[in-house]
């Protein structure tokens, strides 16, 4: 993720810019508008979905239907640091479940959740295509490959200090 910390006003301003470009475009512009909106907010709160619906002249139900369908769109905010654990087949047979268990154990949250201080969140993902490095995790934009559970505490510590 690595979202720049914008103030709520700056976010709203950026969203308005995106919306202005897509005004009245209808259904066909929905996915790209939502993708851009999520880049600004990090997730898609209902208020943003309503604004998107009004601008594109769609019903909120249609917008929510699309948001809830695709796993890329998130209805929950994510942590500042996101641990994505690849659970694709190649990583799975090489033990990515144990890596996930270890991360869940250390951070004390389950996959899909955020720590109470909003610093960390865990998500399981399907194949980032770096199967040669299996098992793989992504921490924000950094990729760590050929992992063993023993290496996890060190990696987490690195982000806790930062």
């Amino acid at each position: 993720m690595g979202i720049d910390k914008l103030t709520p006003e700056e976010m709203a301003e950026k969203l308005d810019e995106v919306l202005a470009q897509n005004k009245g475009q209808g259904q066909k512009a929905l996915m790209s508008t939502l993708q851009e909106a999520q880049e600004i907010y990090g997730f898609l709160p209902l208020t943003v979905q309503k604004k998107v619906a009004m601008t594109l002249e769609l019903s909120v139900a249609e917008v929510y239907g699309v948001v809830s369908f695709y796993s890329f769109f998130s209805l929950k905010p994510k942590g500042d640091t996101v641990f994505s654990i690849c659970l694709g087949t190649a990583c799975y047979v090489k033990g990515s479940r144990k890596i996930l268990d270890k991360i869940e154990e250390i951070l004390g949250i389950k996959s899909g959740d955020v720590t109470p201080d909003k610093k960390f969140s865990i998500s399981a993902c399907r194949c980032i295509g770096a199967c040669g490095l299996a098992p793989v995790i992504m921490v924000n934009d950094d990729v760590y490959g050929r992992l063993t559970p023993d290496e996890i505490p060190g990696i987490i510590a690195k982000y806790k200090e930062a």
Partner: protein
Amino acid sequence: MELFRAHVLVCCGTGCTSSNSQKIIEQFDKLLPENGLETEVKVVKTGCFGLCAEGPIVVVYPEGVMYYRVTPADVSEIVLEHLLKGRHVNRLMTLSAEPESLTALAAEDSGFFKKQKRIALRNCGVINPEEIDEYIANDGYLALGNILTEKRDPLSIIEVVKKSGLRGRGGGGFPTGLKWEFAAKVENDTKYVCCNADEGDPGAFMDRSILEGDPHSIIEAMAIAGYCIGSSQGYIYVRAEYPIAVQRLKHAIKQAKEYKLLGDDIFGSGFSFDLDIRLGAGAFVCGEETALMRSIEGKRGNPTPRPPFPAVRGLFGKPTILNNVETYANIPIIINQGAEWFASIGTEKSKGTKVFALGGKVNNVGLVEIPMGTTVREIVFDIGGGIPNGKAYKAVQTGGPSGGCIPSSLLDIPIDYDNLVAAGSMMGSGGMIVMDEDTCMVDIAKFFLEFTVDESCGKCTPCRIGTTRMFELLTKITDGTGTMEDLTSLETIAVSLKNASLCALGQTAANPILSTMKHFRDEYIEHVVDKKCRCHVCKGLTEYYIDPEMCKKCSMCAKKCPVNCISGVIGKEPYVIDASKCIKCGACMETCKFKAVLRK
């Protein structure tokens, strides 16, 4: 044109980029001028060489010496020794799993490359994907140019594609030429050409590597397809999870427009064609053609019944053709070299080559392209270099969540569409995951079912409910509470699912179960009757205990245990695991130096 005495090719595919190949390029850019070599040596950023497990990979031409697992710190040695003094850096030339390759100087001679035939991947790892000139120099846009300047009859080109025997590389294997012909014959002012680059099959990364290593071949092929069916607009639907591929595609489209190879009146022929990219948003079902088109339209990716087929009513209700990335990558070279040449490769009903993403428990993980008809054994043992750590082969999984497993008894079947289906699997998009004796086949079936439950769009009942019920039954079996009746129920549901589901996702969702039950039924029965998982993967069937005779009372296991369920007294009483609290993580077993922790 500038001439260089040596070229340094650095792989910048996703795998190698993840292991820092960008820093390697920066290091070369810094060290070459420092040694006065900047006018003699050129650094080229390329797509995937295929040997992803040994990345980052650097190849030095003209010798073709391949260096593996290069770190930025190794760059100075390559510059000083190889480029300056002409001495190879032997220590970087050894594959970790294949010591004999030390004698093979050129990369092409190593076991990994010898049995491959690169057609779809012809430019990957050879050209710089961000330079359109390099693609053109390698016969790029030649096919499109010839077709347009000679104003060839679209139907005659479709005839070439039909004669070549090319079948869809996305999984189903429908003849490509026939698909084009259907769309060409439908009368309509507006038609669309789409490319399916929504590679959602976990463990498969062929399409990504082509998009990253040779994006222009897709653009050229789509323009050719547009000319054939009478379309002037194309869409590439690509996963948002592939940022490098998306960026290279955007760049390639921009370059093609600057060179007027896309846009209005291409080659002055009057034919116009434009391309746009649409990003997917993480829904596996969008790999299904009707769902993909709904998604491009900005809707939920729900599949729709066929007929009407997309060739009649597809995207925005207009006639549409949709092909997979790898299928398109074959088109320009088929036009250039002829249908007979392509049809001479492969088996009777499956022509050409297929790219597989070889992964899992195999030494040479990576991307391989083999002529159809190559056996599974050749791929796993000759190209893949066998199973690591001396373990035994158990199965290869092809076709991802829609496919099945190929056991050792079928290792010698020649790979083509029909043989794989007969073996209870399918070609799929090309993921090939090798499993060794430590992989529990019931757990693997459960893994795929968990995936399909998650990815089922929910529109039709057989798929939505059927996959859920099957997942519940498999969970029961792996927890140790399964019965023999559950095995019968699994088979009954599987058959209904296959017959009654709306789209291919549901129709094939039971394949992982059916094929593992067919080839590894003894493992299922072991789980149900003996309450035992021979691979110790299923936690519900595994129990850890400490042998009091072997225990040296050192307390290491108790310190490692994350749930504090091991008790004892240092130096006095042997340690004991409280099975009721144990989460079966195995940490104690890994820690114990005396092999006192056992499992049953």
